[in-house]
């Protein structure tokens, strides 16, 4: 005989039920024939001899029914009825099959059936929309690529590359007249002119020589003789400045490299010792002044 109460006493409350899942607030039932999914006296398929469920297989809904007459034949216990695909017709089918059954089971069956049809509709709609494709990443490949990227970044030397490119563009004159650094381009142009006109100069030299003969020119007293002023340190400084001015003037026609050196030399004015550099001559060639520190020497003298 089927004693539902006894069964429920055992599995529902006191002893173990393998389908029961306990959480903090609720008890769930994992039995596949359970109609609500909760573990209740009225929803337990084991503790109710007259029971019905709706289950879905591959888009088709079936009504399963269990009656007490077949409780002794487990193989034939559940009666399976295929429901129509039309929602209203299926509801009528449920009503017709579960006529005279308890209200609770009828109601829950219809609820479950509604939910199932709704999720089937949603599944069909989603398939039509764009699917998100998951591409698996291989960890090894990803770390390798990351490392390669770091190394490439170091090899790229981006800042230098960008600066070089910008300077190239400036040199080639893509910026037009915006920037007032004519010296560079001017010097380059002059250099080119010099190279072109060298050949012409040779022809014209003779004419120039003849031209200048007999002409008077008044020259300022810029050139200071060494012998007069070699004793005075102050005059040395003056001389350095005047010499450098001379050298500046004379080297305007020369290349920019030499100009750079000259500017360096002029900047080191303050520190150049009296006798540290090579003897300054008034010829127009490049001299590079090396700064020498005289402080340690003076310190040693003091102590």
């Amino acid at each position, binding site marked *: 005989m089927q004693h539902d109460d006894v069964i429920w006493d055992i599995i529902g409350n006191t002893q173990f039920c393998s389908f029961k899942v306990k959480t903090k607030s609720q008890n769930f039932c994992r039995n596949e024939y359970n109609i609500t999914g909760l573990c209740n006296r009225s929803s337990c398929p084991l503790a109710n001899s007259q029971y019905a469920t709706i289950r879905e297989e591959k888009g088709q809904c079936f009504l399963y029914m269990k009656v007490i007459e077949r409780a002794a034949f487990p193989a034939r216990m559940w009666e399976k009825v295929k429901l129509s695909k039309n929602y209203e017709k299926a509801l009528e089918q449920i009503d017709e099959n579960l006529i005279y059954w308890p209200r609770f089971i009828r109601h829950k069956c219809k609820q479950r059936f509604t939910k199932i049809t709704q999720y089937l509709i949603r599944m069909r709609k989603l398939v039509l929309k764009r699917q998100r494709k998951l591409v698996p990443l291989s960890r090894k490949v990803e770390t390798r690529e990351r490392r390669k990227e770091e190394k490439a970044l170091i*090899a790229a030397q981006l800042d230098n590359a960008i*600066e070089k490119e910008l300077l190239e563009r400036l040199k080639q004159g893509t910026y037009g007249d915006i920037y007032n650094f004519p010296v560079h381009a001017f010097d380059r142009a002059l250099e080119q002119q010099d190279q072109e006109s060298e050949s012409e100069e040779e022809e014209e030299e003779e004419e120039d020589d003849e031209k200048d003969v007999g002409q008077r020119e008044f020259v300022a007293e810029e050139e200071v003789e060494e012998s007069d002023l070699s004793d005075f340190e102050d005059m040395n400084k003056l001389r350095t400045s005047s010499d450098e001015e001379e050298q500046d003037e004379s080297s305007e026609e020369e290349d920019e490299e030499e100009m750079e050196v000259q500017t360096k030399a002029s900047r080191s004015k303050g520190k150049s010792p009296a006798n540290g550099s090579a003897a300054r001559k008034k010829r127009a060639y490049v001299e590079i002044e090396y700064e020498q520190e005289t402080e340690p020497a003076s310190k040693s003298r003091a102590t």
Partner: protein
Amino acid sequence: HKAVKSAEVDGEGSAVEEKKMVKSELAVAFPPTFSVSEIKNKQRRHFMFMKLKQEKRKQKMQLRKKRRKEREALGDKAPPKEVPKTIENQRVYDETTVDPEDEEIAFDEGTDEFSAYFNGLTNPKVLITTSDRPRGRTVRFCEQLATVIPNAHVYYRRGLALKRIIPQCVARNFTYLMVINEDRQVPNGMVLCHLPNGPTAHFKVSSVRLRKEMKRRGKNPTEHYPEVILNNFTTRLGHTIGRLFAALFPQEPHFVGRQVATFHNQRDFIFFRFHRYIFKNEKKVGIQELGPRFTLKLRSLQKGTFDSKYGEYEWVMKRHEMEACRRKFQL
């Protein structure tokens, strides 16, 4: 073999201090087929290995000293210093490298999909969007991209299919469609589609730095059109990609704005930077980074507009073929 091994083992049986004295004798006694890895005892094996390394280092130092002495002795006549091998030096010669004077390529470039832009007929207009449901970082990245690229508009993607967006964009005179793909709240892919019927490039995006994460950055970029620098795009494919990037920006940059966008290709990684520059004199320029920075790696190039099913792929990254050699690059 075994006899020798035991002898050498006995030699090492002595204490550590004695080992160093016995060193020279042991060095002589090794048979040529002996290798450090055959010693089973880890401590002894480690010791022998260290010794081996020291020997090698000593020989290397001696060689170096000798070479330096020779160089000094020769003085001016010394042979020039050898250039160290780098991956860029050793790069396998790519047969599709573009020769600047190649007429065929010049003709190709005169008649390809970008010719309209390069002849000044169209102005770039860019539509930036994302994949579905973008998260904060991607959204901010898109906004910053829109400030960097002039004439760019960001639109929220509401689950629309790209194939439906494209005809609408064409109707509204957009020239570019840029889709930033997102994964786990971080942008990781970019689809760049040249609109009338132009090529579609799919990139992998990595190392995205937004503006607030950048150190020593300048103020926000202004509305001036930036200049474009494209570095190291040498092969035919590289040329196509380079033109793809160049056509994003308007043809006439505003030099007053002093802004420059750089796409630098190094070993198939394209680094994007956005700077403001200032010329201090004719020899020095100072640059200050504004703007977002990211790196791209080309994954595929498709001939028409975006079509993942029936599209004709001009170039697809096949890792096993193309990344097998460390010195072979595609761009």
